[in-house]
């Protein structure tokens, strides 16, 4: 491998690794912030929906009989592009309302039950309870009447935060690819620049050593002069050997 190739390899690999570390640092932080923002959006919407539903319950209508709740959850589902399903579950784990109407009256899936149990223990107006379903993230918030009794749980299944994170990572990946391409190009340029002097020194030395002609008027570098001096030295040695050889030949002729 030539000096140029080694330089390109070293600079390219080092900068590529460093840039990847920068990208990981930014992507990790950025996706965490983005997911936090997404969760905040979900929490806000869930709390707003909870407040709406509880207002209707406070007017004295039982939750299972509040048909307007079906419209509310369908609005909630429609407004969020990441929403997969919104359901209201009774304290007994039966689905009272659902954006998938075929599930109404059925026993809720286990992950919804788990979220319901978490929500039952949460303080009034507290943070969402979460679970991971097969389709996405399941979030739940308890619904309470005026007596602060739990009358149900509002459950939303959303495309997981990971889905949002992956989409964002894919977007950021293009930046990394661009950075690596730029790093490669710069590595080639740096390799060329840094290898030029040693290669030129060697070329000049070799040119002087092999007595290549110098361009007219061009400056003679120190390396070329060095090679020329060595060439002169070797030439002088050769001349001495030739002289001795001729004298030996003369002695040989005399003997004959």
């Amino acid at each position, binding site marked *: 491998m030539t000096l140029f190739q080694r330089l390109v390899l070293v600079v390219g690999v080092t900068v590529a690794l460093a840039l990847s570390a920068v990208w990981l640092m930014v992507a990790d932080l950025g996706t965490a912030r983005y997911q936090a923002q*997404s969760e905040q959006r979900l929490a806000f919407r869930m709390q707003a929906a909870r407040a709406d539903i509880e207002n209707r319950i406070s007017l004295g209508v039982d939750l299972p009989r509040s048909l307007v709740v079906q419209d509310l959850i369908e609005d909630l589902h429609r407004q969020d592009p990441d929403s997969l399903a919104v359901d209201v579950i009774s304290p007994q784990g039966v689905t009272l309302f659902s954006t998938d109407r075929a599930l109404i009256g059925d026993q809720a899936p286990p992950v919804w039950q788990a979220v319901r149990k978490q929500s039952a223990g949460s303080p009034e107006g507290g943070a969402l309870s979460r679970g991971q379903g097969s389709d996405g993230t399941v979030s739940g918030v308890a619904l309470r009447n005026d007596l602060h009794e739990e009358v149900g749980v509002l459950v939303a299944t959303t495309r997981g935060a990971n889905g949002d994170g992956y989409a964002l990572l894919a977007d950021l990946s293009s930046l990394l690819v661009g950075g690596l391409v730029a790093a490669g190009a710069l590595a080639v340029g740096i390799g060329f620049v840094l290898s030029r002097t040693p290669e030129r020194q060697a070329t000049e030395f070799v040119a002087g050593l092999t007595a290549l002609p110098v361009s007219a008027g061009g400056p003679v570098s120190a390396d070329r002069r060095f090679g020329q001096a060595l060439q002169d030295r070797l030439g002088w040695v050769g001349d001495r050997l030739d002289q001795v050889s001729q004298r030996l030949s003369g002695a040989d002729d005399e003997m004959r």
Partner: protein
Amino acid sequence: MMKCADPSGFAAELALGPTGRTVPVLTGLVALSCALVTAVLGMVLLDRALGRLDHAIAADRDAVYRMASAGVESSLSRALTLGIPADRLVGVDAFLEALRQRLPGTERIVLVLPGQQYTSRRGDGEQTAHAPEPESEPSRYALSLPLSSPREGATGGTLLFWHAASPLAGDRPGLLAGVAALSLGAGGVGGGLFFLCAGRALRTRGQRLAAAVAAVGQGQFVLPPPGGGTLPPDRCLKTLAEQIAPLTLRHALLMRHAEGLRAIDHDGSLTRQVEEILAALPAEWEFSAAETDLYRQGR
């Protein structure tokens, strides 16, 4: 091998060969290049990535603010529809403050109605008479609200959310410090890697070249095989060996000729003559003994 003296002092004029002094300089330049390139590209990458992240987070935050505005509009509409005048609404400031606390990253919320303005604040909930000085450009959302008197029809209001211009602004100094640290690390790693991959070989072969050149200056024309390297000193060594090879061959032929003459000497006079002639060669000169190999190679 025959040794001959070299009175010319040529060896004293020889300096360290080409590329011998460049290894520390090259290593330093490689380290500096790696650090600078990482710093520049890292800053650009950081800036672009934060811009995209800000955009994504801002879009999400905008959706939250729109939902919040819809909620405020709905609540105020109910109050106004009941006949409460806009300037007699009670607890609006506390309502806005409760809303602000549910929106992390929001510094202030201001509700602007015709002739009135409410600001999110803790505690007493008094109305504000003057507009607050904005710290950054707020997000604005228009509200459609009915006045207290149904006869007057609907009127508009504006909800203003003050928040940090960039959701990730607080993280930027830490990220910049991270880029700086990674740049320094890249410089160290790059310099070390270059030394291991090329610098060490460059220095070793440069020293070998310098030793060979010094040896030639002292009349020792015996060089180790140059090897197959592609670094600059390798080229120099290879060329030097190629230049010395003919001299070695000529010296070998000379010695064979002298041996031949000695062999046919009957009375010793020819031997004396040969010794006198060979005495003209410097005693310090040393050539390789592998002349038979040179014969076979056809040089």
